[in-house]
C-alpha cells in the first residue's frame, strides 16, 4: 500500500521551495535568534560565575588559612576571632540539617493529608478552599513568618517548655509552615496525575477508600511524594531570615530541642556584614556558603533521581 501512495505522488518536492526569503524575513530571524541566545548566555554566565566566585572564596579557608577540611566540618568550637582562629562548623551544619529535616517530618504528613483531601475525598471543596489557602501560605514573605514565629511560637515554647523558647524546635516549626505549600502542591499534582483505572480497579475489588489510598495510591506515587519532601527540605535548608530570627544564634551544638543554636544561613546573615574581606573569619563564612551551595547540588541531584523513578 505504502509504495503505491508514493507512486501516485511523484516528484512533489516537499522540501524548501526555491523561493528566496526576503531580506526583512532574514533580518527578523536573526534578531530573534540573537536576542534569545543573549538571554540564555546571560543565564549560563550567571550560574557559572556564581559557582566560581563562591567556590574560590569558600576554598580560601582551606588553601590560604590552612584549615583542614575534615576539622572544619567536624569541629564543634567556633571562635573565628581568636588567634589562631578556631573554625569548627559542625554546630551550624547540624543546625541546618536538624531544623530542615524536622520541618519536613512535621510538614510531610500534613501536606500528604491535604493532597489526599483535595484529590480523593472532597475535590470540589479542596479546589475551592484548600488550594487558595495553600497558595496564600506560599505567598507570605519569610520575614513575616519569622516575625510571627518570634511573637507567637517563641513565647509559647518559653511558657510550655524549659529554656528561652528560641532554638531548634522554634526553627523547625516556622520552617514546617513555610515548606508545607511546596510539599502539598507537588503531592497534589502527583495524586491527580494518577490514572483513574488503578483506583477504579481497587474499588471494583471491594476495597474501601482508605485501603485504596493506602495500598494503591500512596505506593504508586511514592517517588513523586518524596520529590516534594526533598524540595521542601532544600527550601528549608536555604532559608535564612525566618530561621535566624527564632533560632537564638548561639554557636554551639544544642543540648535539647529548646536550646539556642545556629544554622549555616543564620551565621552568614549575622556575621557577613561585620567582617573584613580577606580575614579568616570572612573566608570561613564563605566556606559555609560553599557548603550551602554544594548541598543545593546534592538536593537537585536527589530530585532528578526521584523524578526518573516516578512511574506516572
Amino acid at each position, binding site marked *: 500500500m505504502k509504495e503505491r501512495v508514493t507512486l501516485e505522488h511523484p516528484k512533489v518536492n516537499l522540501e524548501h521551495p526555491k523561493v528566496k526569503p526576503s531580506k*526583512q524575513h*532574514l533580518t*527578523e*530571524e536573526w*534578531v*530573534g535568534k540573537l*536576542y*534569545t541566545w*543573549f*538571554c*540564555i548566555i*546571560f*543565564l549560563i554566565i*550567571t*550560574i557559572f*560565575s*556564581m559557582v566560581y*566566585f*563562591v567556590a574560590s*572564596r569558600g576554598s580560601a579557608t582551606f588553601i590560604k588559612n590552612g584549615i583542614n577540611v575534615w576539622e572544619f566540618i567536624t569541629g564543634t568550637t567556633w571562635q573565628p576571632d581568636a588567634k589562631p582562629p578556631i573554625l569548627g562548623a559542625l554546630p551550624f551544619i547540624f543546625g541546618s540539617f536538624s531544623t530542615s529535616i524536622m520541618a519536613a517530618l512535621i510538614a510531610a504528613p*500534613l501536606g500528604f493529608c*491535604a493532597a*489526599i*483531601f483535595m484529590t480523593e475525598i472532597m475535590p470540589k471543596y479542596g479546589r475551592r478552599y*484548600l488550594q487558595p*489557602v495553600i*497558595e*496564600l*501560605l506560599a*505567598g*507570605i*514573605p*519569610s*520575614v*513575616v513568618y*519569622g*516575625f*510571627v514565629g518570634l*511573637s*507567637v511560637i517563641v513565647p509559647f515554647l518559653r511558657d510550655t517548655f524549659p529554656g528561652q523558647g528560641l532554638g531548634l524546635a522554634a526553627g523547625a516549626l516556622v520552617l514546617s*509552615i513555610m515548606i508545607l505549600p511546596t510539599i502539598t502542591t507537588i503531592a497534589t499534582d502527583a495524586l491527580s496525575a494518577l490514572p483513574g483505572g488503578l483506583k477504579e480497579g481497587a474499588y471494583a475489588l471491594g476495597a474501601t*477508600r*482508605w*485501603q485504596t489510598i*493506602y495500598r494503591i495510591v500512596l505506593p504508586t506515587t511514592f517517588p513523586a511524594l518524596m520529590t516534594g519532601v526533598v*524540595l521542601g527540605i532544600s527550601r528549608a*535548608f*536555604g*532559608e535564612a*531570615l525566618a530561621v*535566624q*530570627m527564632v533560632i537564638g544564634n548561639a554557636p554551639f551544638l544544642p543540648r535539647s530541642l529548646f536550646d539556642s543554636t545556629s544554622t549555616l*544561613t543564620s551565621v552568614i*546573615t549575622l556575621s*557577613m*556584614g561585620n567582617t573584613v574581606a580577606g580575614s579568616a573569619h570572612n573566608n570561613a563564612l564563605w566556606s559555609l*556558603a560553599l557548603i*550551602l551551595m554544594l548541598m543545593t*547540588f546534592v538536593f*537537585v541531584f536527589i530530585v532528578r533521581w526521584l523524578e526518573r523513578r516516578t512511574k506516572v
Partner: protein
Amino acid sequence: MSAKLANRIATVVIIAMALFIVAILVGLLGYILIRGLGHVSFDFLTSVPQTIRAGGGIGPQLFNSLFLLVLTLLITVPLGVGAGIYMSEYAKANRFTDFIRLVVEVLSSFPSIVVGLFGLLVLVQFFGLGYSLFAGALALTVFNLPLMVRITEQAIRSVPKEQKEASLALGLSRWKTITSIMLPIAMPNILTGTILASGRVFGEAAALLFTAGMSSPRLDFTNWNPFSPNSPLNPFRPAETLAVHIWKINSEGLAPDAAEIAAGASAVLVIVVLLFNFTARFIGGYIHRKFTASK
C-alpha cells in the same frame, strides 16, 4: 479493626488535617492583620523611621520596595521572556538543552542568601556599585529569572499549534510569528505568573541585605532628579526595603515601639502580597473569560 472502621477513622483524620491547615492560615493572617492594622495609619505609611524614639513610620521603605520591584521587573521580564522563548521555540532536543534545563533548575534552588553573597562580591565590590538599588535589582533578577523562564516557557508551549503553523504557512518569519501571534496568546499566563513572581520579589529580604543595603539616606521627595544622591529616583543610592526593615527592627530595633512597627510593617507587606495574588487571580480569570467565551 474492620476495614470500614479504618476507612472512617482515616477520613476523619484527613479532613481534620485539612481543616487544621486552613486554621493555620486564618490564624496567621488574623494575627498579623489584627495586631498590625491598629498601628497602620496614613502617618505611619508616609513618615520616616526613628531609631531611638517612638512613632517612626515606614514611608521610605515602602517607596524603596516598590521602586526596587519596578527596577527588577524592567531587567527580569525582557531576559526571562527571551530565555523562555528560546527554551520553548528554539531549543533542540539535545544535550545542550538538557544542560540549560539543569542550569535553570539549580539556579532556582539556590538559597537566596547565597544569591545575596554573590551580589555582594560581584556587584557591590567587583563592579563597584556599592550598596545600591541597582545592585539589589540585579541580585533579585538572578533570584527571579528561573521562575520567569519557566512561566514563559509553559505559557508559550500552551499556544495552540495550529495558530503557529498557520502563521508560518503564510510566510511569516519564525520571530514575527512568536512576537505577533504566540506572545499575545500567551500573554495572560505570562502576566499572571509575573504578578505572582512580583509578590515573591516584594517580600524577599535575604538577597537584599548585602546588595541594596540596610540603610536608607534621608530622601527628599521633592527632588526628582535621578542623579542627585538624595533623590528617591536615584538607582545608585542604598535602599532598605520593607522586608529588610522588618527583619532589622526585629533583630536590632532600639525604638520603644519596635514590636508595633514590626507588626504594622508586616501587615502592610502581607496586604501588598495578597493584593498581588488577588490581582493575578482576577486578571487570569477575566482574560480567560474574554478569550474562551466561557462563563
